[in-house]
């Protein structure tokens, strides 16, 4: 049998194995076939899995100092930068390779873009994603613009990673976020860099 004849079956086998690895270890499966929407429960479960793996809690959940060191405060899960935590002016960074600074809560970041605060992703109507639609959420993740049309999302939000997800997976993330208890937390607006003010 020639190598060329073996390559295609081998490729299929490789891709099959990789696909199998992705749905093992308890990972909720992606929809089996296009056009067959998952149940709401399945979608929320997969969204929860993607949010955990995607590191959303790293920045959208305030961190606190626990007995074993810094840890996300899951009593305020995904509610963004705490409204009550007024940040003093960011320390200036001298010229050189150190480019940005971050708050101990992991919810505020200062750099050449100004100061950004992580958003409240819970479904609170006034301060979170309560008035967002699934379409807006997908457009935001795909374009890196607020509501898919507004100002650009600021660093360090890695929207470009989420943009590589399928629409169904982004819908699952949104479904999970909508399933969270709403937290009323009005995150401060970003602060523009001095040259833009």
């Amino acid at each position, binding site marked *: 049998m020639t*190598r060329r004849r*073996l*390559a*295609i079956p*081998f*490729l299929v086998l*490789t*891709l099959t194995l990789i696909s199998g690895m992705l749905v093992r270890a308890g990972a909720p499966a992606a929809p089996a076939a296009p056009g067959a929407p998952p149940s709401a429960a399945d979608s929320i479960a997969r969204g929860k899995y993607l949010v955990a793996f995607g590191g959303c809690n790293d920045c959208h959940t305030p961190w606190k100092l626990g007995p074993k060191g810094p840890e996300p405060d899951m009593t305020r899960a995904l509610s963004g930068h705490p409204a009550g935590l007024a940040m003093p002016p960011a320390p200036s960074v001298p010229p050189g390779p150190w480019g940005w600074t971050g708050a101990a809560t992991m919810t505020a970041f200062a750099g050449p873009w*100004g100061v950004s605060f992580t958003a409240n992703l819970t479904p609170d109507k*006034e*301060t979170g994603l309560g*008035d*967002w*639609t699934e*379409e*807006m959420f997908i*457009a935001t993740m795909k*374009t890196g*613009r*607020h*509501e*898919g*049309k*507004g*100002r*650009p999302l600021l660093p360090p939000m890695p929207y470009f990673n989420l943009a590589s997800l399928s629409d169904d997976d982004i819908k699952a993330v949104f479904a999970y976020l909508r399933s969270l208890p709403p937290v009323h937390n*009005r995150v401060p*607006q*970003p*602060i*523009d860099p001095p040259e*833009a*003010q």
Partner: protein
Amino acid sequence: MTISPFGARRRGVRLLRNGVAAGLALGLLASVQYLAASTGRAELPRLLSQTGLYAAGAGTTAIDPQNRPFSPQYPLWSDGAGKSRWVRLPAGATIDVLDVDRWDFPVGTRFWKEFTFGGRKVETRFLRKDGPASWSFASYVWNEEQTDAELAPEGGVMNVAEVAPGRRHTIPSVEDCRACHDSARTEILGFTALQLSTDRDPNAPHAEPLTPGMVTLKTLVEERLITPARPELLDAPPRVAAPDPRTRAVLGYLSTNCGACHNAESSLASLGLLLKARLEPSHAPHHDPVKKLFKPTAKWQIPEAPDGASAFVTPGAPDLSALLVRMRSRRPSTQMPPLGTVLHDREAIDLVTAWIEDLGRR
């Protein structure tokens, strides 16, 4: 034949490498095909002079007479750019205007808009309808000699021309183009029944005078370029429904500059700010687009304003009217529109300020 275990292992590695390489190649090919299919940019001419805007053999010195100039009555603010616009419909084709708010252009329709700053051509935007539901969006960047313009990268070009000290014009990305053009009921924002109405608003900010040969609704009706004929568009020319001339000018301005995204059909509709002027059925007497603005903002709060005091429009209080506060801003985090402009629109700000103050006296 014998096969040593080491030989089998090496062969396995080669097969794996071949398989992965084939997979990557297939993925790359699929990505390129997807991009070409989704943007259509692979088929766009490299030079503006190749798009059909200019007469054959004239370089870029004479517009092809098949391309008809037009001027919308409520132009989009683009930092004071001088603008010239042209349209070409395919020969014998007509625009389907059965839905007066959603014009359906024939495949092959082309639009051009030329931007000048300080008398110099900077960019010419080009829209072409390639299929029943697909448009190509492109911009061409003029060269230093002003002899031709070259297709801009899909990601746009930053800071191509100074529009004020320290402020420079940026050519939008295709994604930026789609952010506005894909949000309205018709993708062509300056070529609608309202924009081409013969009942032009004399108070519209930055209104440009009509010059001979410009296309209006009269042209389209008389030359039978729309289907169905809709003679009522001339008998009762479309206009913004408003109780007074100032309100008419304000709503017309907001319709163009904000309503492309903030409209009932857009993904932003849930924010509750609907600024696109509708012609039907909004003529109904009960419709009052102004009062719908007297409500709290969905989320964005006016800096320094008391909690809960931020409304889209607060009659008599310009500083508590988020719509105006964001028009005044050119900070990236706050400004509206969020793209396409780096300078205040002073004329419009004065108009909207006077309007809000007047609302408080009614």
